[in-house]
Every structure is written in structure tokens, then in C-alpha cells.
């Protein structure tokens, strides 16, 4: 079969396709420049949108370093029910931490009063990360002494006795605690030692619930329902501070993303307008050969749309990589790729590319092909 026959029998659309492929192939250099511009713009947009979505979660995690945001306490200073801690932990699951605290005022052998607290050391270490501790107690009867308690009660770090209602416990100072607040005047021992010694049950459970404000309020509602005898209240200081800073950061990031995406689109616009203008000779030849204006417009539009689509896909991949790099560098945790933003980036790229094509095409339409072909 001759070439002529094959071409004659081929469907009409193949000419359109061949023109597209040839056009891209013949001006490879400029196609690559335009593609890079779109790719970079899409990458920057992807990275910014991904960060915008993810940064909240990242910052919330940082804010959990402030410790508890909910307090569960017995009503009117009563002790909590015995199963309170188990109930709180089963409601929380993996959504947060719950740490019990029990307090008494005990005396040392010189009759000096000191607040002794019983708690769960491994949980406290995770909840109150600002506590500066020389070494956490491991053995039974080991105690963690606040700096001021240490210098008042046993400056040489010798083991000592504590007396509560005629019952004595002998404790070893295992570590020193420094917080700059009231904890510095206390002695912490493990909860099991504490209950064996005093028989006093925890009066407070400090809860650090993770998530946004809606999730935290739903945790609070569940806790209130499960523990009708206890009082569940938010630590307003922590909640309000968090909401405040998160809101401002979010707004700043929003403005920054908008500005950056605008500049990136401008870059694509400039490159593509130049690219289409450059091809005015092609435009003129097509027109001179009798192509209708809609056909030519469709041709250029398809061309830039394909560029936009390819650039968006490549740019999305690069953008995800950039976002996760920023996550690792700044938050020491990768930013999760959000594929939900892909449609937005994809549609945005194609839209910008089409806008870029419209401007030169409308300008060229008014010009006679002969004038362009003469190079004027």
C-alpha cells in the first residue's frame, strides 16, 4: 500500500495529531522551556497547598508540648472513682495521653511540710516534656525531687523519711526536677508507692487530647458522659493560646500561598504568551492554506493544554517532594502527600495555559496572514 493511499484512508483527526507532535518535536528547545515554567509553577503551587493543609496538624503536634489541655478532677475536691483512669484511657485510645496525679502534704523528720505527689513517671515524661529531669526514677521507693524541695529537705541527696498520718516511707532521691514553677517545691514518687503509703487515690487526671478544637470538645463531651461524678474542664490558657497562634499562622500562610501562586502563574503566562507569539508564522501559514479560525484556535489551545497537563503532573511530583523536604527540615516529620489537591493543581495549570494562549491568538486574528508572512 502506498503512502498516499494510507494517508488518504487514515481518519481525519490524524492530521491534527501529527501537527501537534511535529510542532512539539521541531521546536523542542522552546517546548522544554515552556514545560519547565509550567512545571516549576505547578510544583510551587503543590508544595504551598500541601503545606497549607498539613502545617496545622504539624503545629498542633508542637503545641501538645505545652502538656495537658483537659483536666479531669473530682467534684468539690473529692477523690476520683477508682476506675476513672481506666475509663479515661479507654475513651482516649490513641487520641491522647492521660496521667493521674495524687497529692498529700507530708512532713519530713524535722516536721517540715512538703507536697508529695504520686504519678506515673513514664506517662509524665511523655506529657510534660518541659520538665528538666536529671534521671527518671526506676526502682520502687525512688523519688524525683524538685530543686527547691531537694535543697530544703536533703541537700546532700541522702535517702530520707516522709511521714503522713503516722505512716512512714523511706525514699531515695533518684533524680532532680526543674520546671521553674510550683513543681520545684514537690517530691514525686510512683503512684503504687504512693497508694501503699498513704491510701489516697488520685484527685486529678491530666489529659492531653490531640486534634483540632472540634475533636477536643468531642473528647470532653465523651469524658463528661462517662464520668458523671467528675468535673471535666479545658485548660483555657493552653487552648486559647493554641487557637490564637494557629489562626494567625494559618492566615499568614494563606496570604503567602496566594502571592506565590500568583507570581508562579505570571511566570507561566509570560513564557506561554511569548511561545505562542513566536509561532505567528505557523498561524499565518495555516490561515493562508485555508484553515478556519476555530480550527487554528483549537490547535493552539490543545497544544498549550497538553503542555499544561504534562507540566502539572511533573510539577505535582516535584512539589510533593519539596513539601516533604520542608516537613523534614522544619518539623522533623515528613509532610503527608495530599492527593486531593492534585485536581486543583491540574485544572489550574490548564486554565493558566489556556488564558496564556487566548491573549496572543486574539491579537493575531486581527492581523492579515500576508503581513505576518512578510515578517512585519
Amino acid at each position, binding site marked *: 500500500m502506498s503512502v498516499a493511499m494510507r494517508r488518504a484512508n487514515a481518519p481525519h483527526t490524524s492530521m491534527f495529531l501529527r501537527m501537534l507532535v511535529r510542532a512539539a518535536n521541531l521546536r523542542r528547545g522552546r517546548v522544554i522551556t515552556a514545560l519547565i*515554567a509550567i512545571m*516549576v*509553577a505547578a510544583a*510551587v503551587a503543590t508544595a504551598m497547598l500541601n*503545606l497549607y493543609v498539613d502545617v496545622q496538624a*504539624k*503545629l498542633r503536634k*508542637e*503545641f501538645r*508540648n*505545652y*502538656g495537658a489541655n483537659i483536666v479531669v*478532677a473530682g467534684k468539690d475536691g473529692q477523690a476520683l472513682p477508682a476506675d476513672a483512669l481506666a475509663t479515661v484511657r479507654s475513651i482516649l485510645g490513641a487520641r491522647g495521653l492521660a496521667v493521674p496525679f495524687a*497529692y498529700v*502534704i507530708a512532713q519530713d523528720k524535722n516536721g517540715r511540710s*512538703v*507536697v508529695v505527689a504520686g504519678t506515673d513517671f513514664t506517662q509524665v515524661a511523655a506529657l*510534660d516534656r*518541659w*520538665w*528538666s529531669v536529671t534521671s527518671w526514677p526506676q526502682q520502687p521507693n525512688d523519688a524525683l525531687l524538685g530543686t527547691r*524541695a531537694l535543697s530544703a529537705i536533703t541537700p546532700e541527696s541522702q535517702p530520707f523519711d516522709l511521714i503522713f498520718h503516722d505512716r512512714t516511707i523511706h525514699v531515695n532521691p533518684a533524680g532532680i526536677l526543674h*520546671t*521553674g*514553677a*510550683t513543681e520545684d*517545691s514537690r517530691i514525686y514518687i510512683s503512684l503504687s508507692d504512693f497508694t501503699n503509703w498513704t491510701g489516697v487515690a488520685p*484527685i*486529678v487526671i491530666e489529659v492531653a487530647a490531640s486534634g483540632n478544637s472540634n475533636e477536643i470538645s468531642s473528647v470532653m463531651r465523651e469524658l463528661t458522659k462517662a464520668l458523671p461524678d467528675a468535673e471535666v474542664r*479545658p485548660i*483555657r*490558657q*493552653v487552648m486559647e*493560646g493554641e487557637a*490564637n*497562634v494557629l489562626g*494567625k499562622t494559618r*492566615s*499568614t*500562610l494563606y*496570604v*503567602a500561598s496566594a*502571592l*506565590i501562586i*500568583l*507570581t*508562579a502563574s*505570571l*511566570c*507561566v503566562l*509570560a*513564557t506561554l504568551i*511569548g511561545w505562542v*507569539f*513566536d509561532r505567528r508564522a505557523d498561524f499565518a501559514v495555516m490561515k493562508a492554506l485555508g484553515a478556519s479560525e476555530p480550527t487554528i484556535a483549537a490547535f493552539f489551545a490543545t497544544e498549550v493544554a497538553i503542555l499544561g497537563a504534562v507540566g502539572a503532573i511533573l510539577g505535582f511530583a516535584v512539589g510533593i517532594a519539596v513539601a516533604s523536604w*520542608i516537613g523534614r*527540615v*522544619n*518539623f522533623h516529620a515528613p509532610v503527608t502527600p495530599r492527593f486531593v489537591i492534585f485536581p486543583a493543581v491540574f485544572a489550574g495549570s490548564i486554565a493558566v495555559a489556556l488564558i496564556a494562549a487566548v491573549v496572543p491568538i486574539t491579537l493575531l486574528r486581527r492581523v492579515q496572514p500576508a503581513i505576518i508572512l512578510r*515578517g512585519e
Partner: protein
Amino acid sequence: MFARLVYESFRRQTRRKLLAAIAITLGVGVATAMLAVATGIGDKISRELRTYGANILITPQDDTLDLQIGGVDLKPPSDGAYLNESDLPKIKGMFWRNNIVGFSPMLPVNVNAGSQQITLLGTYFAKSLTFGKEQFTTGVTKTHPWWKVQGAWPNDDSNDVLLGEKLATSLYKHPGQQIEINGTSRSISGVLSTGGAEDNQIVAPLHIAQAITGKPGAVRRIYVSAVTKPEDAFARRDPRSLNPADYDRWYCSPYAASIAFQLQEAIPHSHAEQIRQVAQNEGVVLSRIEGLMLLITLAALFASALAVSAAMAAAILERRVEVGLMKALGARKASVAALFFAESALLAVIGGLLGFAGGALLAHQIGQSIFASQITIQPVLLPIILGIAVLVTFAGSAVAIRRAVNLDPALTLRGEA
């Protein structure tokens, strides 16, 4: 001749120049605004973080152990040492006085009210103090911003008191009513809600608590809220172990530790310390947000540079015929390139100036709408931004200029290149 070429090029091709100038203006504007926001955000977020309340606590130096459980002070008033109220204004005389957002003295005492034992907390609400010629207001409204009052805050010189929310409910009291405290009737100006131990307490002007303890001028502790710099390795060094030069640098940096150190110097017989829960975490959050803004600013600079380069490249490649004509008339490559570079520089300076002004305005808007405070642009930034604008414009034009001057004039003039 050269100047005329540049002048005519600008006069006759206003439209093309306009496009490039808009690109440069926008690019520089975005870069300026982002730089200004990134440099200012540390300070802004730091002030927002003051919502967390005081980050430094001052206590008497030779105090006995605190007996505090769940925010309730159980120490008898006869026990322990006190600070002197008259030393308080000295806080505003120290080196970092402008970083002190506010401070509140606290004096808890046990009182009989409504047939039960209740803690009464004496403090400042919005007390007006003077140090030297400077007048300032301070109190819990500054250091404990999450405290909310239904009714009115008492005047610091009045005999009015605030009732904690839960206490008010259990005593069936409302703002405007009277309450008997240790046999004296006081009027309740408002009901206080804090989410903490104060909800079960009476909060009163400091002088009432002092009168009840019988210790005029006595203060148990002072909460200070200060704007600080995130702690780094240098901040954690012991000031006593530093050499004089390092000591001066440490002393003159607004670290929580060095401000606490200066507070301790300012107030006799005191011990000042950063509250680690607030101070430490503040540093972490602050450095994360600053780091984020820095990276985003880099992204903005990168995007602006690309936009400017792309616009310049497009503008120059459009003028191939012109280049061909110049070369056909005998212009050397170097002189053609010089002409283009001169034009680019002029565009960069004009666009850069406009962009700087626009960016400053934008930063101002961002500051007003998000942080409700000023973001100022350092004038030092102007030459730097202009320099960057010229450099980026040159870099963006360089490839296009090289391609334009290397074209064969015959081909370009026939319209084939």
C-alpha cells in the same frame, strides 16, 4: 547615541516594556512583602504567644517550700518570706523593660466568707504605676489574658472584689451584690472565669489581701510576661562561666533566662526563674513558625525570580528583527548586548522601586489584617532588594540576549529565525 537608543526604545515600545515592568514590579513586590513578613513574624507570633501567660516567676529568695495543690495555696501566712510591693516599678527600669508585656503580684490569704474558708487572692488588675517619668499599666489583664469577667473588673484602689465562677454559683451571688469577708462587707463587681483554681476563689485588689494578712506592702510572688527570644545553646550557658564579652552578649539578648537574671538584680532578695512550660515551648513553636516562613520566603523569591526571567526572555526574543537590523547596520554583538542590558537595568530599577513600594504597602496590609499591628520595612532592605532585582533581571535576560545576538541578521530579517 547609546542613551538615545535606550530612550527611543522605551518611548516607542511602551507596551512591551510595560509587560516586563509589570512582571518585575509584581515579583519584587511579592518578594519585599514576604521578606518583611518573614522578618517580622517572630516578633508578632511572640506577642501572640503571650496568650499563654507569664513566662517568668519571681519568688522571695529565702522562701520556704510552696505548699500548693491544684492551684490552691496551703501555706500559712506566717510562713515563708515576702517580696516588697514598692520594688515592683523597678521592673520597668531594667534593660529589657520594653520587652516586659506586664507583671502581676500575687498574695493569697485564707478568709472566712459565707461560713466557709476560702482563698482570697490579692493582685493588680490594671494598676497604673510610674517609674521615673514613664507611666504604665500592668496587672492580670495583661499577664493572664484568658481570664474573663462577667460584670466589671474592680478598680485597683477600690474595695470591690471578683468572685470565682463556681464560688459565685455555690454562694448564689451575682455582680452588684455584697459579700461578707472576715466580717467586712465588700461589693462584688464581677464574676471571674479562668478554668483554673481561681474559679473557687475570691480575687481582690492587692491592698485588701495585704490588710487581711496585716503585712502592708507584702507580695508572695510576681508573674512576669515578657517577649523573649527562642532559647539556643548559648542561652543555656551559665552566666557565671562566661567571659566578659560573652557575658555582655548574653546579658543583652532577650532570652527568658537573661531577663529573669536582670529581674533578680532589679528586685532585692528575689529569685526569678523562667516558667519552663511556657518559656521552653514558646521557643520551639516560635522557631518552627520562623523556619516555615523562611522556607516560604525562599519559595517566593524563587517564584519571583522565575517570573521576572520569563518575562524578560519573552520581551527580548520578540525583538529579534530589531537585533538583525542593528547587526546588519554594523553594530557589534557587544554593543547590542550592552543596549539590552542597559534597558534591563533601567526596567529593573523602575520595577524594583515600584515593587518595593507596593510590597511595603502589602506587608502593612498583612500586618494590619492578620496581626492588627504594624509590620515595618527596614529601609536597609531597599538597596538589597534593588540589587537582587537587577541581578535577577540580568540573569533572566542573559540567555535570551545571547540567543538574540547570535542569530544571523539575514535570517532574522527574512523572518525565518
